[in-house]
């Protein structure tokens, strides 16, 4: 009898384990209802027209580019090519394209489609955002200027072999993984209503777009990844209001939701909701840019360092940002290969700040104007918390409130003494650090007007280095030098938080943008209420 009881217990345990395993096996079918939280509409479903993160949420389902971002390995990976080889000088790449990638209209993708798409992006009369990336290819600028009709650096060897000659020794993956360089079919684009009826290479095909409400997509059966996608249907619902998203999520009307600081606290405290939280350090650095050409004190490294010592960043992150951020150590984010993990952030040390200010010739401090937006995580609330901290060391900050739309324009014109903002700092570490290269104009991204010969030398060396591991080592030194020079107050890296329902599986902590999910990996179990 005792033996039988043990056998029964063992059997139940095996069945239980089997059920648990079965839950981990992706289930085919079902609907996922994702949210697009950044605006009350999509800009365009033509990926070449828009650089917006909001639009790329849909783009990841409908479109594909040459590369994508492998979240698990935290690196670039080939998407529309099976292999790539580089020439000895690192300037010519030969792509063996997929011969199993179909557009949603049933036609196979070939090298002609890549050439067509990149040539379209370089149309000088249009100003497509992806031109900044395609310009890397030899001869692309000539097309942009209108002096050539074809990009000379793109050569079709055969239908599935493409040779690309680039002008800079960089990894082309960083340039061709985003939605703005997606590969589109010529015949569909030339119909003239592509944005209304987008046809791509992605795992889902377009079904319906109700502007200002949602985009609905169906599974594409001829997607090149065997067995994927798992879902039958994908809905991307526009929900710009955080409070409304919260109600809808709790009401199980949506399957994913982006959380702000206040909701993050509430969800973490809730025993059920806390089980469905995905967090990632995104590649956005929040900082106060000091315009080195505006006022004299900012020209002195000791003054800039004093800012970093005078502000208790950890306190602000825990109290105001509700821990929905990671303390910034330097400019590059932790997910960058060139991030120095041994580096520690500036400690809070007002006495040291005072000492540095005195050494720099400002024992009584100084006054400056601090431009800010209303943003809750890197705007006025933060500035207001910092003002008394700076006052303690003698620095008087006068906040100047502007609308968030205006920030970039102010930075480009240099109409600021200091400005707090959020900057995209990845995944290309070299391109990111070039924002501090002396020859980079302010209009491009050198918003501080930083000019340091040693830093320039490091960046030149990195650009010449063909070995990516060695390049990262050089960039690490450049990033560390930036830490020491402190042209900004290093505040935080965004902690992106995605709440998901218990029936959703396969979400990826994408550090380039958490809402950019590769939906072919996502599946929902049978408990999903969505039909």
């Amino acid at each position, binding site marked *: 009898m005792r033996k039988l009881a043990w056998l029964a217990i063992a059997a139940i345990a095996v069945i239980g384990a089997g059920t648990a395993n079965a839950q981990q096996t992706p289930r085919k079918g079902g609907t996922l209802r994702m949210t697009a939280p950044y605006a009350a509409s999509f800009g365009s479903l033509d990926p070449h027209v828009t650089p917006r993160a909001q639009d790329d949420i849909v783009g990841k389902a409908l479109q594909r580019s040459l590369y994508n971002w492998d979240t698990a390995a935290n690196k670039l990976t080939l998407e529309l090519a099976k292999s790539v080889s580089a020439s000895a000088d690192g300037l010519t790449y030969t792509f063996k394209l997929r011969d199993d990638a179909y557009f949603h209209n049933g036609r196979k993708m070939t090298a002609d489609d890549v050439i067509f798409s990149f040539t379209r992006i370089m149309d000088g009369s249009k100003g497509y955002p992806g*031109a900044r990336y395609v310009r890397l290819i030899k001869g692309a600028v000539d097309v942009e200027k209108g002096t050539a009709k074809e990009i000379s650096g793109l050569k079709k060897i055969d239908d599935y072999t493409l040779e690309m000659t680039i002008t800079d020794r960089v990894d082309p993956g960083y340039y061709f993984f985003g939605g703005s360089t997606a590969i589109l079919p010529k015949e569909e684009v030339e119909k003239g209503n592509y944005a209304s009826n987008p046809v791509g290479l992605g795992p889902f095909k377009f079904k319906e777009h109700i502007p200002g409400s949602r985009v609905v997509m169906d599974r594409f059966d001829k997607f090149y990844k065997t067995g994927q996608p798992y879902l039958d249907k994908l809905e991307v619902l526009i929900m710009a209001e955080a409070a409304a998203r919260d109600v809808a999520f709790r009401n199980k009307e949506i399957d994913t939701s982006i959380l702000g600081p206040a909701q993050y606290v509430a969800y973490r405290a809730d025993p059920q909701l806390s089980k469905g939280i995905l967090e990632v350090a995104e590649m956005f650095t929040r900082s106060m840019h000091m315009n080195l050409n505006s006022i004299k004190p900012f020209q002195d490294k000791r003054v800039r360092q004093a800012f970093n010592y005078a502000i208790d960043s950890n306190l602000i992150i825990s109290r105001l940002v509700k821990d929905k951020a990671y303390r910034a150590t330097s400019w590059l984010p932790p997910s960058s290969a060139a991030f120095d993990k041994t580096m520690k952030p500036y400690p809070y040390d007002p006495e040291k700040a005072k000492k540095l200010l005195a050494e720099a010739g400002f024992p009584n401090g100084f006054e400056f104007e601090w431009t800010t937006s209303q943003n809750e995580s890197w705007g006025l609330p933060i500035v207001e918390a910092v003002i008394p901290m700076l006052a303690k060391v003698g620095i008087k900050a006068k906040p100047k409130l502007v609308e968030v739309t205006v920030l970039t324009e102010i930075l480009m014109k240099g109409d600021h003494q200091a400005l707090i903002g959020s900057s995209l700092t990845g995944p290309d570490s070299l391109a990111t650090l070039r924002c501090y290269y002396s020859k980079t104009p302010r209009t491009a991204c050198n918003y501080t007007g930083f000019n340091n010969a040693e830093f320039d030398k490091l960046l030149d060396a990195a650009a010449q280095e063909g070995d990516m591991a060695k390049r990262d080592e050089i960039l690490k030194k450049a990033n560390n030098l930036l830490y020491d020079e402190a042209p900004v107050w290093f505040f935080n890296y965004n902690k992106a938080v995605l709440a998901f329902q218990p029936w959703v599986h396969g979400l990826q902590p994408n550090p380039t943008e958490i809402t950019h999910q590769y939906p072919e990996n996502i599946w929902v179990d049978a408990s999903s209420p969505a039909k």
Partner: protein
Amino acid sequence: MLLVLGRRLANIIPTMLAVVALVFLLFSVLPGSFISGMNEDGRSTIDPAVMERMRKEMGLDDPLVERFAKYVAATATGDLGTSFRTREPVTKMLAGRIWPSLKLVFAAMTFAILVGVTLGFLAALKPGSLIDTAAMVGAISGLSLSQFWFGLMLMYLFALKLQWLPSFGYGDGGLRNLILPAIALGVGPMALLARTTRAAVLDVLNADFVRTARSKGMSERRVVEWHVLRNALVLVITIVGLQFGSLMGQAVVVEKLFAWPGVGSLMVDSVFQRDMPTVQGCILMIVLFFLVINTLVDLAYVVIDPRIRYR
């Protein structure tokens, strides 16, 4: 009557022209541009060369006077330009939004008239009663409520707690998705109508002709139906017209909160992204709606009260 209609419609043209000029000038002096707005709170970066090309493509480098002249000329032919953001014709974008907007506005106004006029009427017939007090407390609350807060409360109660209705979205465009945003949008006009109806009915109830009708032995029901209702309606219709006309513009908050795909949410998105042609198109649409409704209200006066004559 036709002459009146013609004259009213002719008045719309200079009003629209003035609005076009004002909106164009306002957005020309407003700091920030569409291209810097593409930065999306630091989420993306724009290449300066691309910015330059975009400015050229969109004609933003042309002198202000030239751009204005081009805009007025195009608008006169019904071409509202091309959206900076979507690069699609603004008329096409508006066409997709106008029907959801109209549905929302009509539903909100239906709710406001049904509830507001009824409450106001009942309150006026029994002044000082419990109904009167309750109706007026409700009216004052309705006027003071923030649409955003009230909308959230509706979502919380009817979607999350009672599970009767969806909390957001357009769904299949049916009634289930329309109810909550319509109530959230209609509560303000409802409150105003309740107060106005009460005041108008009370005013008419004390008029000489009502006293005469009662002294002739007419039943109270017939007095109310024949004399009070019709006379009070002139003031009520004025408020209905004004509220109706302005509701499309007021719907911005509700549309955004409930993710309702109307003209309001398109406009607010376009303002933040400095998509000037779309903003101008939305404003023109809202103003045109307001003017048309007001013209219809003016005509309705003549039908309701034959004493009113337009010269």
